[in-house]
């Protein structure tokens, strides 16, 4: 009985300390010191919130770069991967469909050039990055659709490429939303 009472008193004290004070303190300090990150790295364009730079969004315009395929159709309220196993026929179907789409969208690109990350779904369904190779394959299409020169678009890819962290961790990559905003900016600057 005494132990039960102690357990209940511990419950109240610890829920307040660990379940309320701790997260609320982090929220308070986080909102104060890092408001951009703490609210989800939301990015504005022309006065409107157009997305989070950490979250992939569906792209349907040929003049923008496409993110990796998403098994959840870029639903940022329902993340996830396909969970298809390596010998599942559905996996082959899915990759085949994505591959056909990539080839259709980017005339001139051959099967052997396509990296696996470009046609295989990401883990979160919201992977904000593509590989540099993936971006370069899309450059001719984006250039044609926007009227920008191939050189200009290639430069934008280069400017938005981030290398490995300290040259060691991770993979060289391009953030698709950053790159697309740079493309839009370049387009407005060159527009008559």
């Amino acid at each position, binding site marked *: 009985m005494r132990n*039960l*009472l*102690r357990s209940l*008193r*511990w*419950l109240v*004290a*610890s*829920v307040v300390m660990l*379940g309320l004070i*701790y*997260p609320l303190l982090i*929220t308070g300090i*986080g909102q104060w*010191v890092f408001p951009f*990150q*703490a*609210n*989800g*790295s*939301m990015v504005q364009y022309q006065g409107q*919130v157009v*997305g*989070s730079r950490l*979250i992939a*969004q*569906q*792209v*349907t315009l040929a003049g923008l770069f496409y993110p990796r395929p998403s098994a959840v159709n*870029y639903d*940022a309220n*329902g*993340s*996830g*991967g396909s*969970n*298809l*196993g*390596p*010998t*599942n*026929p559905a*996996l*082959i179907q899915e990759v085949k469909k994505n591959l056909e789409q990539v080839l259709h969208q980017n005339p001139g690109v051959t099967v*052997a050039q396509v*990296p*696996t*990350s470009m046609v*295989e*779904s*990401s*883990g979160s369904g919201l*992977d904000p990055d*593509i*590989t540099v190779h993936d971006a370069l394959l899309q450059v001719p299409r984006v250039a044609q659709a926007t009227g920008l020169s191939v050189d200009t678009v290639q430069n934008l890819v280069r400017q938005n490429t981030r290398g490995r962290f300290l*040259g060691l*961790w*991770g*993979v060289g990559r391009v953030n698709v939303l950053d790159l*697309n905003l740079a493309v839009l900016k370049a387009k407005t600057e060159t527009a008559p």
Partner: protein
Amino acid sequence: MTVQGVAAILVTVGLIFLLAIPLGGYIYRVFMGQRSKLEGVFGPLDRLLYRVIGVNPAVEMDWKAYIRSLLLVNFVMALFVYLIFRLQGVLPLNPNGIHGMSWDLAFNSAVAFITNTNWQSYAGEQSMSYLGQMVAVTYLQFTSAATGVVAVIAFLRGLVGHRGTSLGNFWVDFVRVQTRILLPLAFLFALLLVGLGLPETLLGAQAVHTLSGGTQIIARGPVASLEAIKQLGTNGGGFFNANSAHPFENPSPLTDVLEIIAMALIPVALITTFAQFIKSRAHAVMLYGLLVGMLLVATFIIYGAEAAGNPIVHHLLGISGPNMEGKEVRFGTSMSSLFTAVTTSTATGAVNNMLDSLTPLGGMVPLLLMMFNMVFGGIGVGLLNILMFLIITVFLSGLMVGRTPEIFGKKIESREVKLAAAAMLVHPFVILVPTAIAVATKMGTSSMLNPGLHGFSEVLYAFTSAAANNGSAFAGINANTVFYNVTLGVVMLLGRYVSMVAMLAMAGSLVKKAVIPESQGTLKTGTLSFGLVFIAVVVIVGALTFFPALAIGPIGEQLQMLSGQLAH
């Protein structure tokens, strides 16, 4: 595999040790009651909590009193969290209008968090209110980690005690592990994570107008505070369905490295704590060498298998490269492989890639690491498992060379061996029996996503993960059914508490024994040769018990994949 990829893995593992060894010494000092440099902060907080709970910190407990308090407070906390899950729909801090959980899902989830498993039959962004994420998930991620730590500390006191009965005071240990270890670490780590891009807000999901003219609802919330203790406490239950693959939980290679270090930190540190308790550096060196060896072998097998990619995709579609299905570009294969090996070694269960989409060999390694359940292992309980295997090894070695088995100066007798064997055997039992039932019934098989051998692996993985209190999944399986919620819940409870009670009972019997000084006739247990016997015992027990199941699942599927056959 690339040079940078291999170097990234080795440097990360090196960093873990750089941080964990000093922390291990600190943990030892916390439980020896030594004053901290921040005693002015910790001291009053501890005393306040003792007063609120109503305990006299000077009282000592024998093993029965210790485990009784442990189990009772675990039960009370689990019940509270169960009610939160049921009622979250009508409770505050629910800006996204999430509903309460069904009874079976709430049972499964409450058990998952109290047992440090963090199995999730639900998707966080759709089924958990902010209140649930804070006072249920984040909360139990602290207390379940603390429960693991105090259990092994009590055991170590039994190991070094001389003709005594006391294992310490449960409440004092339980308070101190929160105030002096978990809370300060989580606080600093959470702030760092916010700075590195994790959201920490009470605002609801944000609707945005995308560049292509569509709308996207972006879920967010108090993520960083959960993420910090999720990793540090070897919990693994994510804020979002995609866990640490989600860019809001793990936005960059840097956060990935930090999250890997965080989940290994305390399990690795506790081996130093253990060595300080028994005053033997040799044991720490021996265990570190062997366990790191196992971890690296595991990591490089996954890395090799994933970097080689899926030959069927290559043959049928003509593209080649690493297996990127279920992986994120920013981590690549190298950091995905290390994360996978560390999360299943340390019983964390967080994932930064979808394990269901790994190649069969790449998926077998995490399965095996959970079957071993002692490559560092979960916070506290991992070291308990290591000690259990050490005791079984010393018993077997004693039989082989004809000596009375003794370890750390304590005679190992019939009672200890029986308890160790019970703790050891419960693990395969609660994996293989439910797996057999699930694959033999429609209730079990109808939840599989993938056909053929991979479907079997999904079920085997689920019960292995539950038994090892890991929480990672071959997540294609639909576990949110009454059958899986209940069976997995029961397996998690048995996997957690049977061995914990058995080991504390053993501590209760060890503490009464006299410490025998080392002599010529003592079998040296801190040596490489003893360590190799120890690994052999672990591997034989693991391999022999689980080999048939592994043959049906990942081994069979690997052969199938190499021969280019699809399942049907």
